[in-house]
């Protein structure tokens, strides 16, 4: 193909050449030799915005393989090539969540950067000391790193920071959507802010992201609190994601042939995944163990080398390292079956496809997992394996709805629409704040309480932490010997703080909390990564039985259960995590809708249609309160934060309820009782959130939560989980819609008379 960039006769030619003409001649030539037909929309706009814009922050939102990297680096390299190179220091800081991604980007960027003589430096745990020393001696051009390595700069090389980053012009955050909802995102915000303080200026921030629902929120995340001036460039959807949902049915009697049986899952996995590098996400350790064992035996039976390795939090470090190494190793295919342990941070190299057993915890976690596969020109591939029960007359209403499958469909629809969970609004992130305080003490070599307030809270990302709360946190840290105070008032690292700081994993704030093992008098029932509130004395549904929570042993992560007499309960009652609001709303739409998504296989289609039928039959399309076997179910189709708050509020009204997969089941109470309780909730003033939180046992979910102490942990937990206002509104809504329905009934009966 000839050079169409120049000779194109399209009507948009003027615009195309305008952006292209701004680029460095050598970069133009590079585009020609790579036979680029034309610049993509996002590239044109980004080039114009970077080279001739007013210097505002930018967000480039495009799907994987949408050309974002070139869109940013072509104009930036043009600018760096033109600028005088005599000032010492890096000009561009690129922050990425994954080492594999950095290595990948390093090659892509170097290819262009070498043309215009701009040095590119990689900086992460796998980079050799000699390379690092060279970069420290003569810092220049572009540095690619992770938030953890940047944190290490602050702790270990604080005196170098002004020299290294003093002349920084651009700070680029890749995969912004991966950072936003997590602790790591808060850490990144804090590091960007601290870097600005150290170098005394604020470089332009550019974020690259997969398609995200709320672009304004992403802008605000990039430069809190609001970042009004930031500009977002959103690309058309052209990246390729391949998704398939395979449905299975468990405990199927012999002879039924219209659906696939759950016993076939390993066989399907074996045939689809063997011979490539893949990740299989099973939601629990038990799932990981049994699946990898079955697959290994399949390999043995067929006399082929084993390619399937397990990876989860309670495996020994050696085994985990071995699994990671097998994935990274070139030329030998490997598939690792893991819990969420490989979702974040850990480097595993190139992955061809992702398999997900059951529904994943959240849309953002699917998008994280998906982001592990399909680099460069390969599509991202995601296969779901969903197992449903075949319900009979005895089964609970929820089992008829096939909610696991519905959740998967809802999440996939949201993912395809470019939606992703927002940062946990209102969460305090005290664990991350604690980490940042320790890091700041190391950076400054001691710091006053007032400086901490200024750097991290009042002008930093922890704006929703009040002074009282910060003082309480500092005192708690003092009591735990994390910090101590010199007579001059300066805060220093304490004994425990020094121990934490000198550990190798100090720089990372993300971690995967342990699963809980559920134990009944008859023995172990299984394990779950329980994120919803566990309150001793309340009930829990697991494996089709209702249990009374006797006690929770946080240290050993064990929940002691006692069987509790019950009516009917569903077989499946959620995976243990908190499902988001938007997902639940979409699940209801999926059940209400009629179109069948393309990515479902035959069995999944069949399950969907039977779920929809049950939904209509139960009258759920118009009612939300359903009486079922002596109990009343409240189907609110809202996120778990609201649902569990509502559950807590109902118990305050004397109404005990069980949390099922989506509904709240109020035991032995009639519809009238429930409406009365909801009315009381919606009209009463809000109860104390901390009191609600104090009853919950399993509150430690972030890395340093264990250091927070009871009161702070309650505050943190309440900020993360409870949503009193939302729950009150929800209660009011159900009361109103029920009274409207009864009005309609009265009217119609009146007409008859």
């Amino acid at each position, binding site marked *: 193909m000839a050079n169409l960039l120049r000779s194109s006769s399209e009507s948009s030619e003027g615009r195309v050449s305008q952006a292209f003409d701004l680029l460095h001649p050598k970069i133009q030539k590079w585009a020609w030799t790579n036979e680029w037909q034309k610049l993509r929309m996002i590239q044109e706009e980004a080039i114009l915005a970077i080279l001739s814009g007013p210097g505002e922050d930018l967000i480039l939102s495009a799907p994987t393989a949408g050309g974002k990297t070139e869109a940013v680096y072509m104009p930036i390299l043009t600018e760096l090539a033109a600028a005088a190179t005599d000032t010492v220091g890096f000009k561009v800081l690129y922050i990425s969540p994954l080492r594999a991604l950095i290595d990948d980007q390093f090659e892509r960027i170097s290819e262009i950067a070498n043309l215009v003589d701009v040095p590119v430096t990689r900086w992460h745990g796998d980079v050799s000391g000699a390379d690092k020393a060279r970069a420290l001696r003569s810092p220049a051009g572009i540095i690619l790193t992770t938030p953890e390595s940047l944190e290490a700069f602050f702790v270990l090389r604080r005196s170098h920071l002004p020299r290294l980053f003093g002349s920084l012009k651009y700070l680029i955050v890749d995969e912004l959507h991966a950072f936003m909802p997590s602790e790591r995102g808060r850490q990144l915000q804090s590091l960007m802010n601290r870097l600005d303080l150290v170098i005394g200026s604020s470089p332009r921030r550019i974020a690259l992201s997969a398609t995200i629902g709320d672009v304004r929120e992403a802008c605000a995340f990039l430069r809190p609190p609001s970042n009004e001036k930031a500009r977002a460039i959103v690309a058309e959807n052209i990246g390729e994601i391949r998704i398939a949902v395979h449905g299975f049915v468990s405990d199927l009697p012999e002879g039924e042939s219209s659906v696939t049986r759950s016993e076939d899952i390993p066989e399907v996995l074996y045939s689809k995944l063997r011979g490539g590098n893949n990740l299989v996400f099973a939601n629990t350790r038990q799932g990981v163990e049994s699946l990898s064992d079955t697959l290994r035996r399949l390999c043995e039976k067929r006399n082929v080398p084993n390619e399937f390795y397990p990876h989860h939090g309670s495996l020994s470090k050696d085994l985990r390292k071995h699994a990671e190494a097998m994935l990274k190793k070139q030329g030998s295919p490997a598939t690792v079956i893991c819990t969420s342990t490989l979702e974040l941070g850990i480097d595993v190299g190139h992955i061809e496809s992702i398999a997900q057993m059951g529904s994943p915890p959240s849309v953002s976690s699917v998008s994280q997992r998906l982001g592990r596969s399909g680099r460069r020109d390969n599509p991202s591939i995601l296969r779901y394996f969903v197992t449903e029960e075949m319900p009979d007359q005895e089964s609970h209403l929820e089992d008829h709805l096939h909610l696991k499958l519905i959740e998967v469909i809802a999440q996939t629809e949201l993912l395809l629409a470019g939606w992703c969970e927002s940062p946990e609004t209102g969460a305090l992130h005290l664990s991350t704040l604690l980490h940042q305080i320790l890091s700041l003490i190391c950076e400054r070599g*001691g710091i006053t309480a*007032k400086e901490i307030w200024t*750097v991290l809270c009042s002008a930093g990302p922890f704006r929703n932490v009040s002074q009282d709360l910060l003082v309480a946190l500092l005192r708690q840290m003092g009591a735990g010997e994390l910090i101590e105070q010199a007579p*001059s*008032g300066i805060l*220093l690292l304490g*004994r425990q703080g020094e121990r934490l700081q000198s550990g190798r994993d100090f720089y990372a704030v993300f971690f995967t909390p342990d699963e809980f093992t559920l134990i009944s008098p008859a023995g172990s029932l299984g394990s779950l990564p329980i994120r919803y509130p566990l309150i001793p004395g309340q009930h829990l549904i697991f494996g089709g039985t209702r249990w009374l929570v006797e006690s929770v042993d946080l240290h050993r992560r064990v929940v002691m259960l006692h069987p509790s007499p019950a009516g009917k309960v569903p077989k499946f009652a959620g995976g243990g995590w908190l499902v988001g609001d938007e997902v639940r709303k979409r699940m209801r739409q999926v059940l209400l809708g009629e179109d069948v998504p393309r990515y479902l296989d035959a069995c999944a289609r069949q399950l969907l249609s039977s779920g929809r039928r049950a939904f209509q039959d139960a009258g759920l399309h118009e009612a939300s309160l359903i009486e079922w076997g002596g109990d009343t179910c409240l189907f609110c189709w809202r996120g778990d934060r609201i649902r569990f708050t509502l559950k807590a509020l109902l118990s305050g009204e004397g109404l005990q309820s069980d949390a099922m997969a989506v509904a709240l089941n109020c035991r032995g109470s009639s519809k009238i009782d429930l409406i009365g309780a909801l009315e009381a909730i919606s009209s009463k003033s809000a109860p104390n959130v901390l009191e609600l939180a104090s009853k919950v046992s399993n509150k430690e979910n972030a890395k340093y939560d264990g250091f927070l102490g009871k009161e702070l942990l309650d505050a943190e937990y309440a900020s993360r989980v409870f949503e009193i206002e939302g729950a009150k509104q929800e209660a009011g809504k159900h009361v109103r819609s029920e009274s409207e329905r009864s009005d309609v009934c009265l009217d119609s009966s009146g007409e008859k008379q």
Partner: protein
Amino acid sequence: MTKTIRPRTRDAILQALSAGVVPRAGIEHIQVGRLREIQEMLKDIRRIADGGAGIRFIIGEYGSGKTFFLNLVREMALSSKLVTMHADLSAKRRLYSTRGQAQALYSELVRSMSTRSRPEGGALPSIIERFVSKSLAQAKSEDCSPSEVIMSRIECLTDMVGGFDFAAVIGAYWEAYDSSDSQRKQNAIRWLRGEFSTKTEARQCLGVRTIVTDSTFYDHLKLLALFCQLAEYDGLLVCLDELVSIYMLQNAQARRGNYEELLRIVNDSIQGSTTGLGLVLAGTPEFLQDHRRGINSHEALSSRLEGNAFAVDGLVDFSGPVIRLQNLTQEDLYVLLGKVRNVFYNGETESAPLPDKAIESFMQHCLNRIGEAYFRTPRTTIRKFVQLLAVLDQNPATTWETLVHHAEVEIDTPVARTEIVDEEENGCSEDGELATFKL
């Protein structure tokens, strides 16, 4: 008592005092009390001059006058023909490190090298010149070649650790001196200042294989002390201030490394294995006493610095290496203010518009304003007093009675580094609890 002061010294004193810092020169004019301590230090200086060694830890609370005392000792040492060096320890300047901080401390010390004729630092070249000229004189009187004399004189250096290259650099200086090669002379001085960063560079410029590095910090101090004696000075006194910055280090290993180095220095000095080298180190009590981060966290070191168990309840023993500076008393402060007034009016206090009664009244005012702590940290009090004198002097129409009660005296607190953003901007004005936060 009415001896006159040189105008230059007078201005320097007053300027320093009104800025709240310790004057570098003329310090004897405003010295108050501490007689025993000064006598002890004089003994130390005499011992160093006799080829002995000494180490002293000056321990006192914030504002008790440690820096003042260090400067006083320096002046005393300078007038007894010692060479002095002084530096503040900080995160970037440490006794022991692996990332260049000890080398930085060495460079800072050499930069501050002072003699009686060059009291404000930068005396290294003149010390070498003196060594050369003394050698030349000796050669003349003994009627042999200068090179021979110099080589024989620096031979004793080669016995010490790292002394061979040190001697070689001095030799190179002499050769350059002899052949008027100023570039090479400069290189030799740069080497002695610890400014070479690579061995290759040093070999190219001077033909030596080592440079001053973090690990050779103390060895080079000993060499310099010996060299000062060769240049016919009486010895070398090193003053290190802000030892609390070792206590402030956030890494337990880094602290331990520094205490180990300190232990080595203390051992050498106490055992008398160094000659002509004295160290005076100043720090706050927590540096000495804290069991987790302070000297007490290092057993060997703390056992050497333990106080005399019998020196309690007013009994003193100054023979140990630790001198605890007592805070000034009200009476001391009264005398001090009198001396400041004396400096201000150049000894002519009879005609001064500020009588003794005014000093009493000023002190009473301070007591009322900020309570009994004011005389323990005299910095702000003296500062305000100097300002009061200045206003009285330049506005002859006013009387001291009206002015005294306008003086705004605040309590003196350690300065926290305020390199952060402007405070008003971030709504920091209301954070009462944070400003005075106590764990």
